[in-house]
């Protein structure tokens, strides 16, 4: 057994900040090829620069907010069915 007080990589705020920077940089990097290539489009809008980035961002934000909203009705205590 390890010590309960062991400090891991993700316990240090400095590392978390570093990871945030890496995430932003990767997100930015994924956009770069769009400026140099032309995508075969099926519907017109799917050829826009950063279309898939926007799609991912917006759809995930909507999914989270929507699930939060329906959660107000659907979420119940764990012993709900045993009562």
């Amino acid at each position, binding site marked *: 057994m390890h010590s309960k007080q062991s400090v891991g990589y993700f316990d240090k705020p400095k590392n978390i900040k570093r990871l945030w920077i890496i995430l932003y940089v990767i997100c930015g990097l994924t956009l770069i090829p*769009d400026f140099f290539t032309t995508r075969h489009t099926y519907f017109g809008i799917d050829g826009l620069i950063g279309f*898939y980035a926007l799609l991912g961002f917006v759809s*995930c934000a909507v*999914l989270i907010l929507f699930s939060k909203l329906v959660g107000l009705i659907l979420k119940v205590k764990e012993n709900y069915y045993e009562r």
Partner: protein
Amino acid sequence: MSANVPPSLFLLSGALLIPYLKGHIRNWYTIILPAVTFYIIWQLDIGTAWHLSFFDREIILLRVDKLSKVFGYIFTLNAFAAFVYAYYLKDPSQHIAAVTYMGSALGVVFAGDLISLYFFWEMMAIASTFLILARQTQKSLNAGMRYILVHISGGLCLLAGIMLHISQTGSIEFYAMNDRNWGTYLILIGFLVNAAAPPFSAWLPDAYPEATVTGGVILSAYTTKTAVYTLIRGFPAWEILIWIGCIMTIYGIIYALLENDMRRILAYSIINQVGFMITGIGIGTMMSLNGCVAHAFCHIIYKALLWMSAGSVLYMTGKSRCTDLGGLYKTMPRTLLFGIIGAMSISAFPGTSGFTSKSLIVEGALHEHLVWVWLVLEIASAGVFLHAGIKFPYFVFFAEDKGLRPGETNRTMRCAMGFMSFLCIFLGFYPQPLYALLPYPVHYQAYTLNHVVAQFQLLMFSALVFFLFLPLLKRTETISIDTDWLYRKGLSGFMGILGSLCTRIAHACDLIFIRTLPQSLNRVVKNPLTSLVTSYLKAVCKDRAVLDRFQFHQRLEAATFGPMGFPILLSLMLWLCLFCILMIWG
């Protein structure tokens, strides 16, 4: 050497030996059994069939084509890995249930007719129930009972459909159904129950998370994927499946985002992934059907890997709620690594199997210019990464450290996870062997610059949203109400209302037919003249107190004929009738 033995019968007869074996021999036996079955399937020639006469009908226990073979491969491959994972297990009953379950699933896949398909279908439901009951808790017992009841209902629906279909077509053969009638609709519903399509989906997240550690791994592969197989075989290009599939993809994500229990998250993500496959079946082109089969193949691998990784955490910590877990990366790094590979595969990261399989379905929608379907699939792809790709590993292995220091799981569990991880990455970089197994020729290249970039954009920005919205995703000690509410709470409420209604009716009957009516009738029959006069007086006299004071009833009884009154009255009336008849006819 070639042996045209139905693989299902081989595996099922193999299960009979398990109770007589002990310890390591039994465990090795259960590992070797699916490996040999894999070989049997591999050496079966396309077009092979194995018939059996049954009440003037030809039962086809073995129909070999590319579709049945590819499902046979993945079912046995997964069985092999699952038994390596379950090597630690000392409970032979779980092994018997698992082998019977897998054998029945192979039975469905290789069945060429509807009767044997139905037989194996029900056998699968029964055997799988024991994997839930084997956990031996009150919750698993209840969940197991609900599970079997739902599957029996679905099975009866299927049976009714099969009977109607046979009576209409005169054939028991199982082939693509083109007619739209009650028979085919009922068969479709029967298949959709097992595919966990809403509103028949709640059984899956209700039952699977209550199964044993290995039970969860095994269950995740067979029931829903045999349903996918039967839908590919029986209902390709049925447009309704496109919409059912699309609903499933989003429904699975929403519920997985709400859930706290890691195995319930994975259960909902099965529904989400099966949604992709069902959409592919609905589109029904060669490309989308290929995609559907490829996705089922890869899904079984990475989903089993995810359940193995979650199972290892449950096995080591005894906990499965995200609110109880966290910080496990410190002591379970290898389980974390395998979990992340599974999570990346389900999210279709380039370089993993999900990328090379799911793309075929999405591309299939694009080719058919189904804009809305394509959009839903892309949104769902982003959502998968959200709930299964990040949420599961993040809350289990990272997030807030709960002070759990369990250590790694045993070696065989890690071996199984390593094997599945290898397959995820191998098929991600080199999908050609899988493409060669698919029912139709594949002319598709997943790795184009645009496709890889688009996928990276979609996934990385989904990750960004997850971490930006993290406060909104904080776990709570809750469960979510699903359609199982109807039979868990709604039905008992309905029974309560029905019960109270019946009690009221019984009370009213007691009052009218037992207490009031016989007494009144008795009084009338006993002394009709007195009753008539009393009723008349009661109607005429406004002041009831006067009647009571003078005790009219008793006085009248004494004054009239007494108990003899009625027979005399009756005699007089009969005499009068007789007299009238004589007068008329005479």
